[in-house]
């Protein structure tokens, strides 16, 4: 059916001869309480077919009614993508026959999307900014979920039958479509990943989607074509469907570039078709050719009247827009004074919110970073939990830090106290009190411990007298042991020097 070959050309070599052109369709599931056209709950993980109304089943005589919140969320997405918002738009029926929709059509938008002509500036790893033009963002509904039974491992190939759950049918979707992305060159796979990551971050930041790719809240179809370096016309594209992790988006684009180059090098033509992504082999296989199956015979949905957006409504929504994630990062980095790598690590660790809250609660940016990237990250990893789920609050960090700065406890004790906080024993101050963890810095007790240590190690004392100040460290062990680790190291050092008249 298709004349493709799985021969691949080395990525760099392919890019020497061809320019890639990309295009993305990203579907975002909105987290409204109800579905797009019915008042059934929009909820993930419920028992099959429990969130279903007659509208979702397409029963005769039903009348869909548009969810106002879903429209507002769609406008918010459009605004965040720097789009124009249509003054008037409507819905259309996209006709196809498949058991994932019992209506035999998907209610979507056709030639009048609610948002159009936008752009998103994508910052790549090294700081280079690449502008991706947005063609449109339109409203539609999700389809039901099919589970293929029998055959091999739930794949449709060889399945005996399929089971359908319509809980997801009618869940509000916004489909975001880019214009062709030209000029990314070797950075195409990286840009692909960064673009989908940016869209996911934006919808999460807007609060309009749970934005969990592993749950299918954000799904990506990736279009790839190659054109020879000297060509002025785009090549034939393929559309790799349902590439549903950021890593997979990057790999799928890279794979298709390598595969297209091999096909074109051999003199054959790329078949315009959908491709299926396989995470296990990091490759794509041929799906169906783009032909009559794309003949959806759209026509205006007669059961739904047009949506008219007034300037006042749009501006009210615009005033609700949060600070864009990219701008926020730029601002925080400047405010906190972190080095590039420090800041990148903080972003990758996903603790921007935590550090921001800790700084707001009164800690310095350096202290906040030390805790969240250090001990808290370590404890989260040890407990196999997300940092956010560990139960450490910004107030805990501020309190721990003021205990350290007030010399009530040292760093080492503070780390222990943190573990007790996580274990639910109370606030840091309560724990220090209850467990008698306050640093021993009354000079009598410390003086005695120092005397004992010096008596036990005369050779060390001689070294110190001879000017080897680092030898004081050798006394620290016995002193800490005598005070159960609660001695203030700085004070111990001072006492030693005083005693030796240095």
């Amino acid at each position, binding site marked *: 059916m298709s004349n493709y070959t799985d021969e691949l050309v080395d990525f760099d070599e392919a890019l020497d001869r061809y320019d890639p052109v990309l295009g993305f369709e990203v579907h975002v599931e909105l987290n409204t309480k109800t579905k797009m056209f019915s008042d059934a709950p929009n909820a993930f993980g419920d028992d099959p077919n429990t969130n279903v109304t007659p509208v979702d089943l397409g029963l005769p005589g039903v009348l869909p009614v548009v969810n*106002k919140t879903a429209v507002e969320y769609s406008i918010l997405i459009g605004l965040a993508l720097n789009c124009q918002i249509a003054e008037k738009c409507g819905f259309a029926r996209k006709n*196809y026959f498949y058991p994932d929709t019992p209506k035999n059509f998907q209610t979507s938008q056709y030639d009048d999307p609610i948002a159009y002509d936008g752009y998103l500036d994508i910052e790549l790893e090294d700081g280079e900014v690449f502008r991706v033009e947005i063609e449109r963002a339109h409203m539609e509904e999700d389809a039901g979920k099919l589970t293929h039974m029998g055959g091999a491992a739930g794949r449709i190939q060889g399945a005996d*039958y399929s089971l*359908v759950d319509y809980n997801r049918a009618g869940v509000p979707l916004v489909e975001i479509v880019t214009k062709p992305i030209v000029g990314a060159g070797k950075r195409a796979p990286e840009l692909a990943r960064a673009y989908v990551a940016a869209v996911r971050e934006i919808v999460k930041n807007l609060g309009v989607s749970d934005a969990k790719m592993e749950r299918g809240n954000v799904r990506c179809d990736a279009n790839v074509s190659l054109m020879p370096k000297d060509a002025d016309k785009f090549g034939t594209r393929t559309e790799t469907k349902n590439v549903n992790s950021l890593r997979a988006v990057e790999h799928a684009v890279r794979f298709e570039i390598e595969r297209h180059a091999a096909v074109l090098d051999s003199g054959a033509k790329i078949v315009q078709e959908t491709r299926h992504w396989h995470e296990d082999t990091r490759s794509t296989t041929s799906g169906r050719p783009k032909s009559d199956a794309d003949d959806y015979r759209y026509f205006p949905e007669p059961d739904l009247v047009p949506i008219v957006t007034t300037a006042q409504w749009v501006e009210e929504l615009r005033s609700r827009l949060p600070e864009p994630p990219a701008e926020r990062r730029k601002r925080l980095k400047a405010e906190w004074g972190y080095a590039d790598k420090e800041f990148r690590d903080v972003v990758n660790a996903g603790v921007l919110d935590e550090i921001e809250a800790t700084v707001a609660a009164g800690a310095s940016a350096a202290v906040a970073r030390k805790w969240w990237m250090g001990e808290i990250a370590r404890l989260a990893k040890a407990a196999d939990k997300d940092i956010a789920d560990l139960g450490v609050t910004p107030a805990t960090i501020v309190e721990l830090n003021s205990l350290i700065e007030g010399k009530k406890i040292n760093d080492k004790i503070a780390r222990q106290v943190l573990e007790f906080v996580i274990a639910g024993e109370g606030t840091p101050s309560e724990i220090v009190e209850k467990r008698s963890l306050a640093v021993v810095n009354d000079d009598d007790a410390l003086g005695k411990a120092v005397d004992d240590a010096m008596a036990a190690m005369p050779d060390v004392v001689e070294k110190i007298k001879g000017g080897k100040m680092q030898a004081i460290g050798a006394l620290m062990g016995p002193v800490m042991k005598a005070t159960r680790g609660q001695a203030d190291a700085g004070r111990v050092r001072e006492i030693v020097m005083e005693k030796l008249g240095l």
Partner: protein
Amino acid sequence: MSAISREDVVHLAHLAHIEMSGAELDKMTGELDAIVGAIASVSEVASSDVPATSHPIPLTNVLREDTVGQTLSIDEVLLNAPDSDSDRFKVPAILDGE
């Protein structure tokens, strides 16, 4: 001139997953052509300054608040299902649909 050819009907039947005999195709070609012809007469009446419409009443923004309502029981949901299994509709495996 015919607006609907026999090939058009074959194509539509394929899209709709409907199997049609040769006699049925012939019959349907004539009937669909008559329907399309009748509808076409509307555009002869409408002048170019009349915008296309999909709704006879000039309503806009019929919206509902995002509030959860009543759903069907499982028994009601599956009442018309030809077959079901584990509270889900059971359908023949259909290869490579979208």
